C-alpha cells in the first residue's frame, strides 16, 4: 500500500469516526427541542376594580430590543476555542433579541365620576379629562424570542421587556395621537348625547 492510499484510508476513517460522534451527540447527548405542555392549574382572581375608561384610539406597533455581549481578551492563535469564537461566533459571546408586537390605547379615564355636565336652554357643556395613554398592552403571545445565544437570566429579559414597553410608548407619543383621540371622543359623545342644544366638549 503506498502513502497516498494510506492517507485516503486515514481520512475516510477519521470522517467515519467524526460522523459517529456527531450522530451520538445529536441523538443521545444534545437536548432536543420538544413541545412541553404546562400542567393544568387553576386561575385565581386577585383583584376586581370598577372603572370607567373610554378608549378612542388603538395603536399597534412592533419593536425590537436586542442585547449583545462580545468575547474580550487577546486572541490566542494556538487556542482552538479562540478560533471558534472569531470564525464561527464572530466574537459574539451571548445575544438575546426580543420582538414585541404591542398595542397602545389612548382614551379618557372617567372613573369616580371624573367628568361634569352643565347646561342652559341652548348649550350643553361637558368637561372631561384630556386623552392619555390608558394601556400599553403586551403579552407572551405578542412576544417573540427571536435570537437566544448563551444563558440569560430572567432579570435581563425583564429589563429588555421594560425597554420594549418604553419604545412602544415613545413611538405612540411620536405619532401625536392625542389630537386624533380628542376628535374621536368628540364624535363618540356627539353620537351618545342626542340633543338639539349646542354641544361644547372641553378637555382638561
Amino acid at each position, binding site marked *: 500500500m503506498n502513502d497516498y492510499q494510506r492517507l485516503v484510508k486515514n481520512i475516510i476513517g477519521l470522517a467515519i469516526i467524526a460522523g459517529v460522534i456527531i450522530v451520538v451527540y445529536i441523538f443521545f447527548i444534545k437536548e432536543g427541542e420538544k413541545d412541553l*405542555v404546562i400542567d393544568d392549574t387553576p386561575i385565581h382572581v386577585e383583584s376586581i376594580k370598577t372603572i370607567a375608561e373610554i378608549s378612542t384610539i388603538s395603536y399597534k406597533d412592533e419593536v425590537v430590543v436586542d442585547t449583545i455581549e462580545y468575547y474580550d481578551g487577546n486572541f490566542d492563535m494556538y487556542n482552538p476555542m479562540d478560533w471558534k469564537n472569531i470564525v464561527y461566533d464572530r466574537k459574539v459571546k451571548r445575544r438575546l433579541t426580543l420582538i414585541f408586537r404591542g398595542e397602545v390605547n389612548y382614551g379618557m379615564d372617567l372613573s369616580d365620576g371624573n367628568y361634569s355636565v352643565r347646561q342652559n336652554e341652548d348649550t350643553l357643556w361637558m368637561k372631561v379629562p384630556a386623552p392619555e395613554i390608558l394601556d400599553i398592552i403586551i403579552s407572551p403571545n405578542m412576544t417573540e424570542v427571536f435570537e437566544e445565544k448563551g444563558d440569560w437570566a430572567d432579570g435581563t429579559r425583564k429589563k429588555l421587556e421594560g425597554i420594549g414597553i418604553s419604545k412602544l410608548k415613545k413611538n405612540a407619543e411620536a405619532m401625536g395621537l392625542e389630537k386624533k383621540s380628542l376628535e374621536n371622543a368628540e364624535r*363618540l359623545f356627539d353620537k351618545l348625547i342626542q340633543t338639539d342644544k349646542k354641544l361644547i366638549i372641553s378637555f382638561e
Partner: protein
Amino acid sequence: MHENVYEIRDIGELSTSEYTIGKMVKVDDADSSWYWIGKYGDRKILINTKAKVKAGVDLSKIKEDDITVKGNSITIKLPPAEITSFSMDPKYTYTEMESVNGFRDKFTQKEKNTFMRQGEDAIRDELKNVGILQDAEKNAEEFIKDFYKQLGYKRVIIKKTTIL
C-alpha cells in the same frame, strides 16, 4: 400572521371592569431515559403570571336608532359586554422556582416564553368562568344611567343584548 402591526384604529370602548388574574404556570419535564444521556435528569419550573383584563361595552357599535328620546326619558340599547383589553405585564411575571438536575439543560428564555404563552391561552380560555363580562355589563349600565341622569334625563332605560 402579523399583518396588523403599525395600525392605528379608531375605537370607542367603554371599559367598566378590571380584573387582575393570577395563574401559576407549572412544568415538570422528568423525561429520563437511561440511554439518553442528555435527557437524564429532571427539569421543573414554576412561573407566577398575572394578567390585567378589562371588559366593557363597545360604544362604537351603538347605532343611531339604538337611542330613543321621549321627553325626559331615554332608552338605549347596549351591545353585549366583551373583553376590551388583555395584558400580561412582565413586571408582575416571575419565576418562583426552577430546578434542573442530571445532564439536563437549563430552561431557555424561549422555552419560558412558550410556557407563558400557554399560561396566557389558559387564562383567556377560563375568563368566561370568572364573571368579568357580567360584572362589566352591570357596571356599564350604571355608568350609562349616571351619565344620562347628569345630562338631565329623569328616566334611563337600558336594553341589554345578551352575552353569548
